[in-house]
């Protein structure tokens, strides 16, 4: 230990410190800092060092101050039960405390795990290539727009997105688009699905990308995906489809409806609800392989002739290509991708399909029961749903949501008379209680 007040994670004894200072030829550590006096910091932050136990106690007490609500929340961030094996394997220090795999010969384990993750996404999307990860669905969408801008043969600067889109996702997209000189415009919806005729009318030569979601932000399954793909194609625009890793197990394969790029959220596997921390999917066709943002793991051979894995096509990336890189991303969500892969492996295709089907059934069941409540209509849109759906209430939605919170339930307020409810394996057992609470407060 480097004295009582030093960092508990610096192992130097006083004698070692003295020997090292001697070897370097200075009297003390201060002498090693080349910071002019005028700007050196010689005050204190006033942060008191505390024991592990203190900090654990304090944080536990802090988090305990969050209200204990049963959440029926989704809109892009989902919790499913994460099997214990995911925690125990991903928490192995060889994974958790490793760095980016710049020396592949001693990083084969993580590289193979990421290669397998990419492969799972290739199967789910039907596309040729999936990267190791983006930060989340919103930033992946932003990257898709800039890719569209780079690969599209003709000029144009419009990205078309559905009118019903998570506000935060659109705000992130706007930031990526602004830098690339692109503008974001919405196309109208028709009863929870894209209004394909209106979209076709708008999709002209100015459009570089058409974005649609399946399921939509309101949980609706899109019924005319192939038609949306054709509209994009006719306008020589990229068709980017947003989805999530669970829904993809049962919904139409993106490649089969003409999707060029798939973005979305894979944190529905491997992560609990984590205040929005996620895992961005980015998959695309081979045509854009050298334009993909982020990291890619590829198979190769080593000097012994054995199969081995390595980060590849790195000339796309910022550390090589600098301002001409396909993205500025460096650190991404590798460990979350590992967790999602372990979770997917544990479920197997059967388990994954069952989970997705349950999300469809539970949503339909709950909507039906809420619809029986006088003063509530559900689902608002006459569509099939995954996990979530909109609810129309006669009373002001904000008041209903607040009353439900007082009863111990969290739901979304999405319009003056609109709520949104999300049901998964984690809260389905409380669905009856939610219906009773809705009856009570309406």
């Amino acid at each position: 230990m480097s004295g009582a007040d030093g960092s508990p994670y610096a192992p130097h004894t006083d004698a070692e410190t003295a020997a090292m200072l001697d070897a370097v030829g200075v009297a003390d550590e201060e002498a090693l800092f080349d910071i002019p006096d005028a700007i050196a910091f010689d005050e204190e932050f006033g942060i008191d060092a505390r024991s592990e136990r203190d900090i654990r106690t304090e944080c536990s007490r802090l988090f305990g101050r969050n209200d204990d609500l049963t959440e029926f929340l989704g809109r892009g961030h989902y919790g499913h039960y994460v099997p214990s094996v995911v925690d125990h394997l991903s928490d192995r220090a060889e994974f958790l405390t490793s760095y980016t795999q710049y020396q592949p010969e001693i990083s084969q384990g993580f590289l193979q795990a990421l290669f397998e993750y990419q492969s799972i996404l290739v199967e789910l999307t039907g596309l040729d290539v999936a990267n190791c990860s983006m930060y989340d669905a919103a930033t992946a969408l932003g990257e898709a727009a800039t890719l569209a801008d780079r690969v599209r043969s003709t000029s144009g600067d419009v990205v078309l997105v559905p009118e019903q889109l998570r506000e935060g996702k659109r705000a992130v997209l706007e930031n990526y688009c602004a830098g690339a000189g692109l503008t974001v415009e919405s196309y109208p919806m028709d009863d929870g699905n894209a209004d394909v005729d209106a979209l076709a009318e708008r999709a002209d030569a100015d459009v570089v990308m058409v974005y649609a979601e399946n399921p939509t932000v309101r949980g609706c399954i899109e019924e005319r995906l192939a038609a949306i793909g054709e509209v994009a194609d006719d306008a020589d625009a990229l068709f980017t489809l947003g989805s999530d890793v669970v829904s993809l197990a049962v919904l139409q394969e993106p490649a089969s409806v003409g999707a060029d790029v798939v973005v979305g959220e894979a944190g529905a596997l491997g992560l609990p609800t984590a205040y929005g921390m996620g895992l961005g999917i980015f998959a695309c066709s081979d045509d854009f392989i050298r334009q993909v943002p982020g990291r890619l793991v590829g198979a190769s051979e080593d000097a012994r002739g054995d199969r081995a894995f390595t980060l590849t096509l790195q000339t796309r990336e910022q550390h090589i290509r600098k301002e001409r890189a396909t993205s500025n991303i460096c650190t991404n969500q590798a460990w979350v991708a590992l967790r999602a892969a372990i979770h997917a492996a544990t479920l197997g295709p059967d388990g994954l399909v069952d989970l997705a089907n349950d999300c469809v059934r539970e949503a339909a069941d709950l909507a039906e029961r809420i619809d029986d409540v006088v003063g509530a209509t559900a689902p608002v849109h006459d569509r099939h749903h995954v996990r979530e759906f909109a609810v129309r209430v006669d009373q002001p939605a904000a008041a209903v949501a607040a009353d439900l919170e007082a009863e111990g339930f969290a739901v979304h307020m999405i319009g003056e008379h609109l709520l949104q409810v999300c049901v998964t394996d984690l809260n389905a057992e409380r669905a009856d209680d939610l219906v009773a609470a809705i009856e009570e407060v309406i």
Partner: protein
Amino acid sequence: MIHDQARYTREDEAVHEPLLSEKTEETVDVSDASPLPDDLTRESLTLPAPSEPEVARHYTRLSQMNWAIDSGPYPLGSCTMKYNPKFTEDVAADPNAAVHPDRSGRSVQGILELQYRLQEFLGDIGGMDAVTLQPPAGAAGELTGILVAKAYHEHHGNDRSEVVIPASAHGTNFATAATAGYDVVELPSGEDGRVDVEALEAAVGDDTAALMLTNPNTVGLFERDITEIADIVHDAGGLLYYDGANLNALLGRGRPGDMGFDVMHYNVHKTFATPHGGGGPGAGPVGVVDELAEFLPTPRVRKTEGNGGYERFEPENTIGKVHGFAGNWLVLIKAYAYIARLGDEGLADAAAKAVLNANYLAERIDLDVPYGPFHHEFAATAGDRDAADVAKRMLDFGVHPPTTKWPEMVPEAMLTEPTEIEGKSSLDDLAEAFNLAYADTDEALSTSPNRTAAGRIDQVGAARSPRLSWQALEEE
């Protein structure tokens, strides 16, 4: 003896672990199983279907083929690979912290309070007035900071199109500026490895939106002229951006805010020891001076008037969002716990020991270090040896090598950052690995590594004919 420390020996066991898809694969007929009409579903899904014991063995085996900070030294320059204290994992695993981001502010007071406290910690450490926790990584922090700078200029009616960046800067700086829509003006390094003030004066002007700078820079040198540099940039109407990758050298010793920086990002997975997870998740909070606070991403967190609570609010001229929700929340919890554990003295000691370790290691190795006096990292030169080969040989001696061939201002660079977590004996071993590899025969270097799970990997072949999934391998 260091030779005995090699972790992965060929004799140990077969190193090949089959792909999950090579072990077990099942196809599910989705249209049969789904309650949905057939035209809304996929036909089938084919994925591995291992048992839980098989899953456990597969990933355990993979983990055994992976170096980590808990395996041994990881002195990658500019990466600050510190030991990740275990207790922070337990703090972040609290189920009460794992809530949905769309919860009302009044129902997540505990989260808002911890966010507020972490903002305060970071503001104090960086000398910044306002902090956002939203950016999910360092590069995302850079983009946030540059977008804030852009919004500031636009708000004041300034039309500026350029960002000035030293040649020795991290690649992310250049890519970030381009992502934000700026042209990059590259600033050549001065003779002494620092910013050439005269070159800077020539480079900045009415078009300069910002200068992006790392301090200490990427060869560990403190930009002693930083006050003058700040004046030059500010006089031209530009802003000064601090890339926080090397903040570990400054903890408790110097603050970007006191040096004239207007905006900065923090890499919590570097400076504040949150685990790197094989390439994320990290977090890249951004700090700004008062004049820029109104442009920060939304929402921010503040104390409510009077009742001791906390609330979210939207800054007046916010740039909007840089992450769909609130960033990498679980990572931020760990950063808070780490800072609270160290406190003032611990943070200052971390910087002191990081700088002492770098200087001691540089003293012990036989390679030249062209620039100095350096702080937490140094760029040694392998001279007439190939730095990448020396690095590969180091793998055989039971350590992770430094960053190689970068920055370009040092020929055959080996950029080395031991951090504060290595003790004297560990540094002695690291120096020995350096020296043995550096002095080895050409043949030994070019045929290394030999004691790793894989031998030297064909990178060129991997890029020439990309095979990026097991589906691609099955097609062959």
